[in-house]
């Protein structure tokens, strides 16, 4: 089922037999998924199928219960200490996280900081970047997302679309190799969705970033993704190129799901 194993590059993200429970409810169920460098993968599926949970597992916001996740060949939740495998400590997780950034549905900007401060905070405190260098870079990033004029605005003074663009710039400031996007346009007014998608479109051109995005907008998934993963009940049902998934899906469930969402 996996498509992109065509080139011989090793997987950047390797998820094997992954399982996650909430109480007795298994929300990720024996999942296997390899994602290769610079791939742009769209995750689709019905509500409650575990898409957000998968991204949250990758961001270490949730702990994995079963199986394994490897980032660039390094196990996420275990580290070896004196030749033995032990549960990952804070330093190991911090190192793993340094490859990964995330943009949230609800922005989660820090409301008491300006757009600029939101972006410089992590480079200064995490990467130890100089204040002036961090500032210059933040100004650059704000320019890239079309908000050069909003440096000193507080999140409360920005529209939804602007907030989300600041959030993207903030995630980019740490230069992650992997970027996770969880329905980042669902909380937006229809007229501001376009400006955020435009930023995503440009990011999708970059070879140095691997993207994993959850979206309910099929036309957008089709346009930017080079691979679409359909999941349901915590399992991957189909994993194929957009043309295939949206043109002639192999699985009956995929067809039903697409039919129901494309009606609207």
């Amino acid at each position, binding site marked *: 089922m996996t498509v992109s194993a065509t080139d011989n590059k090793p997987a950047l993200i390797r998820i094997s037999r992954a399982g996650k429970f909430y109480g007795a409810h298994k929300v990720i169920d024996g999942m296997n998924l390899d994602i290769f460098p610079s791939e742009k993968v769209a995750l689709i599926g019905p509500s409650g199928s575990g898409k957000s949970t998968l991204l949250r597992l990758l961001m270490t916001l949730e702990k994995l219960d079963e199986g394994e996740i490897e980032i660039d060949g390094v196990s996420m939740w275990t580290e070896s200490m004196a030749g033995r495998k032990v549960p990952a400590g804070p330093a190991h997780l911090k190192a793993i996280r340094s490859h990964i950034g995330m943009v949230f549905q609800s922005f989660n900007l820090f409301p*008491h900081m300006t757009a600029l401060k939101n972006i410089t905070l992590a480079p200064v405190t995490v990467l130890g970047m100089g204040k002036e260098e961090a500032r210059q870079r933040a100004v650059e990033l704000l320019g890239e997302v079309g908000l050069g004029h909003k440096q000193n605005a507080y999140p409360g003074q920005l529209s939804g679309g602007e907030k989300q663009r600041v959030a993207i710039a903030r995630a980019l400031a740490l230069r992650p190799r992997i970027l996770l996007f969880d329905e980042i346009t669902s909380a937006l007014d229809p007229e501001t969705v376009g400006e955020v998608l435009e930023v995503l479109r440009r990011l999708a051109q970059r070879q140095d970033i691997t993207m994993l995005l959850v979206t309910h907008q099929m036309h957008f998934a089709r346009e930017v993704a080079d691979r679409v993963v359909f999941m349901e009940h915590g399992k991957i049902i189909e994993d194929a190129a957009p043309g295939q998934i949206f043109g002639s899906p192999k699985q009956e469930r995929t067809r039903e799901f697409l039919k129901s969402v494309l009606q609207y």
Partner: protein
Amino acid sequence: MIFDWGFAFSILPAFGQALVVTMQATLAGMALALVLGLVWAIARRSRNRLVAFCAGFLVEFIRSTPLLVQLYFLFYVLPLWGPRITPLETGILALGLHYSAYTAEVYRAGINGVARGQWEAALALNLGRAVTWRTVILPQAVVPILPALGNYLVALFKETPLLSAITLLELLHTAKLIGADTFRYLEPLSLVGALFLILSLMASTLTRKLEKACDRFRHG
């Protein structure tokens, strides 16, 4: 015998020094309560269960026992362990400790009021626990609770008369001494009551103003 205004005015200056002592105890006690309360509130969220439980128990214990008894405990027992401290210092310690149990609850409410997404964004940015607390969580937690902290400042101020029980010459103790000297309790005690009333009414007005300002800060 009715209220003697002349006598009342004649003893007014005697309360000047006592008012200074009362203010010292109030401000230093509150400063201690603000610091200790924050410590308890953060300890209660510790990932170490034992630390979290102990902090929770401590807060509950301090909150359910009388300040006067805590005051006696510190006043009579601390010297047995060695440290020689003045009644004022004992009073500050007791007030600070007692009210830290209340400020801890206030901080807790403020911290719980910070959206989950803020913690998650901080983690996604790899900020680390100390930086997250200092730059993301606490600045957002503190502003909404300033009025509540202001109310506890007033409450603490009104409990300073208890320090008279450990010989501190604050307002009430001064009134009692004047009463014992002159056999007139009505005027000095009424004066002290009036002083407290005026000062707490003023402080409450300020707190309400602060509340309005905080609301504006949050919604605008």
